[in-house]
């Protein structure tokens, strides 16, 4: 597949929390329509990287460009960026005091000031796509973990983001619910969404990714096409990491 337009560019990104670097000199590009899966051992900085990209963590040095525009430390600018970058977290965090539909509409109505009625119609379409239209009026506590994650995806999608970030969205789910969430993501990928996914589901990574980034101790250790990476990893570290998934 060929991707031409660069949507996100990360250059020489450096991040630390004061006790040693978490991310060191991380540089990569995401093209429009591309699906990149970031994998690596626990604590390698995968989640931190995603959190830097939508400004939940401040970076120490280096830069992030979205649509060719640099995003720095300006808070107003970040709010604008976050509307273009949707994020789904590990701990399916819906707002517990609101119904599913109110959760979904909060962003488009309050942040993007879109007309409530139109946004609601759209929300219904998206809910139908993830098979949860009948849960529209339910509260988060009435949903299973997998259902909550699907709603969280809709909550991010309705903002019409140019880039979607998924931070181990199935890691806290019961095994039988993982599939329903991954299916939704796979479908999004096929539909041409640009996605940056952190996951420990290797089969899924292989199926969904256009490119794999292997992160180890805060650095990009290896990057490549999924087949090449999974079948013939170039680095010793990646070999050992992939071995841990075999029995």
């Amino acid at each position: 597949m060929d991707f031409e337009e660069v949507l996100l560019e990360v250059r020489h990104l450096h991040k630390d929390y004061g006790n040693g670097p978490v991310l060191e000199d991380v540089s990569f590009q995401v093209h429009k329509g591309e699906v990149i899966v970031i994998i690596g051992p626990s604590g390698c900085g995968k989640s931190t990287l995603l959190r830097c990209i939508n400004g939940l963590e401040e970076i120490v040095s280096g830069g992030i460009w979205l649509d060719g525009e640099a995003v720095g430390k300006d808070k107003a600018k970040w709010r604008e960026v976050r509307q273009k970058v949707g994020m789904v977290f590990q701990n399916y965090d819906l707002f517990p005091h609101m119904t599913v539909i109110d959760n979904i509409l909060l962003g488009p109505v309050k942040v993007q000031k879109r007309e409530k009625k139109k946004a609601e119609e759209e929300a219904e379409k998206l809910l139908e796509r993830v098979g949860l239209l009948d849960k529209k009026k339910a509260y988060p506590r009435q949903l299973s973990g997998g259902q909550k994650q699907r709603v969280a995806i809709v909550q991010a999608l309705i903002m019409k983001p140019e880039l979607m970030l998924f931070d181990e969205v199935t890691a806290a789910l019961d095994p039988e619910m993982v599939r329903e969430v991954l299916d939704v993501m796979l479908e999004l990928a096929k539909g041409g969404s640009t996605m940056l996914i952190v996951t420990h589901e290797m089969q899924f990574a292989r199926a969904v990714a256009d490119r794999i980034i292997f992160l180890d101790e805060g650095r990009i250790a290896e990057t490549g096409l999924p087949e090449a990476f999974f079948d013939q990893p170039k680095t010793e570290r990646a070999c050992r990491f992939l071995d841990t998934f075999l029995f």
Partner: protein
Amino acid sequence: MQDLGIRVLFMGNNFLRLLLGLWITIKISLAAAGLSLVFGTFLGMVMTLENSVVRAVSRVYLEFIRIMPQLVLLFLVYFGLTKAFGVNLSGQASAVLVFTLWGTAEMGDLVRGALVSIPRHQYETGTALGLGPLQIYWYVIIPQAVQRLLPLAINLTTRMIKTTSLVVLIGVVEVMKAAQQIIEANRYTVPDAALWIYGAIFFLYFFVCWPISLLAARLERAQ
């Protein structure tokens, strides 16, 4: 059997006097509770700030007020202010002031507790959606904090109603003072008036506080 003590309740306007006393009690409590709610909310929000000076000051205030018996505070304001600074507050005004000081400390701590009990993810999810800090507070944090806070705040109000009986000691004619006056006046005609009058007050307090407790319990269950 002619001489039933209970008649003391219905002699003259005795019962009405008790009710008027009760009204003063409720008035002081509600005024103090209302003010405590406003100031306490503010105090609680301030206490969640990361500024260490603000935190230290509010912490000291909180500990002082909570450790000191309300009676000492009451005497300090009512007698102390007058003697030292010539500030002449009425008994009722002193009472409202003291119970507001106390209620603000208690309420502040409840608000702080409710705010910090909201998981950090809630702020992050809101931020990731592009909501501003004020919008996050308004749409996400406050509604959840209020849900947790409501039963606790209501319990504080009942505690306040009960504790206001102390103001009898600075001469406010609330329900306890009215009772004492009635008992004094009937010392010879109805020797066991104390039993009947204080018994009546027992039920008066009960009927004021019980519905409030019920409400709190119901809100707690509703969560």
